[in-house]
């Protein structure tokens, strides 16, 4: 069944690029977008979503802080933190929070693996 993806990135281009990859993989999914953590949180309180892709380096709170706050609201949501900054502290913190770390620039293959796993988790939760 189609799900809804939340894309958070301060770069409009990065959001468009993620949307392009999503359309190629799951054309029937819908998406909502935010440009920073504050916007994402207020959107998350108004609109339900199933999966989220969060940029790490954003003005204000970073993607890891946002991931923790989103998981506090919706504990079992599959989340990925996306960054070219693959320092072990950042990758490790993502894992500790319960998020997946994906490298930027985001490629379709890595996004596909994350979304397939997310779908499996969402279907399991429903069963």
């Amino acid at each position: 069944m189609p799900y809804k993806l939340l894309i958070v990135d301060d770069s409009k281009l990065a959001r468009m690029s993620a949307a392009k990859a999503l359309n190629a993989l799951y054309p029937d999914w819908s998406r909502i977008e935010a440009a920073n953590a504050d916007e994402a949180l207020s959107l998350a309180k108004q609109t339900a979503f199933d999966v989220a892709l969060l940029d790490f380096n954003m003005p204000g709170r970073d993607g890891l802080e946002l991931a923790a706050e989103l998981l506090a609201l919706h504990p079992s949501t599959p989340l990925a933190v996306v960054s070219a900054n693959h320092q072990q502290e950042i990758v490790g913190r993502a894992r500790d929070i319960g998020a997946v770390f994906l490298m930027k620039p985001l490629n379709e293959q890595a996004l596909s693996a994350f979304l397939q796993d997310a779908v499996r988790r969402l279907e399991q939760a429903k069963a």
Partner: protein
Amino acid sequence: MTAGSAELLGELQLDALTELVNIGVSRAASSLREMVGSQVHLSVPNVSLETRAGAIAILAEREISNLVAVHQVFEGDITGRALLIFPETKSLELVRAITGGDLPLEDIIELEQEALAETGNILLNSCLATIANMLQRSLKMSLPEVLRGNAATFFSLAPPPEAGDVVMFLYINFAVRERDISGYIAMIMDLPSLTALTHLLDDFIRRATGETTQSLNDSA
């Protein structure tokens, strides 16, 4: 962002350039983390069109002490300079962090010049190679050169700009908090490069989104 940069680069081109720099510097920070063994924190990038004096003022405003820079020229479809800049007082601490911290002070002082050049080389190459790959162009990098001075010294290097006094100035702040090391990665490009850059950015946007900048502007 200044009003000028918005005129020369469209909103999405400027967004794309900032994202390219962000990805390039993030990769460089990951390399630096491996070298110093502690987490490297990054600011979000700042991209603006400045006069040379304006770029000098931006850096001088943030760093008043004597500075060290590792400097490399990049050449290709776009030409400019990339610099790793930090206060001179942090220079030995950076070398100490990279060499593992077991060496006596006299060895660290002896190694300083070479260690700074090599660190700059790895970081700036990592950053520029990532950007070049994403733009699908190759950039030729000069050998690293260690400079001492201030913002005016670094941004007024010979040869003088080919056209006008306006430059594209990009910078990002990095810090290794556990080691009290902080500095900047900066890039400076002359205006002739900017025309080439806008074409490269349009191609990059097309690849990333599957749409042309023109069609995106029309639908905006």
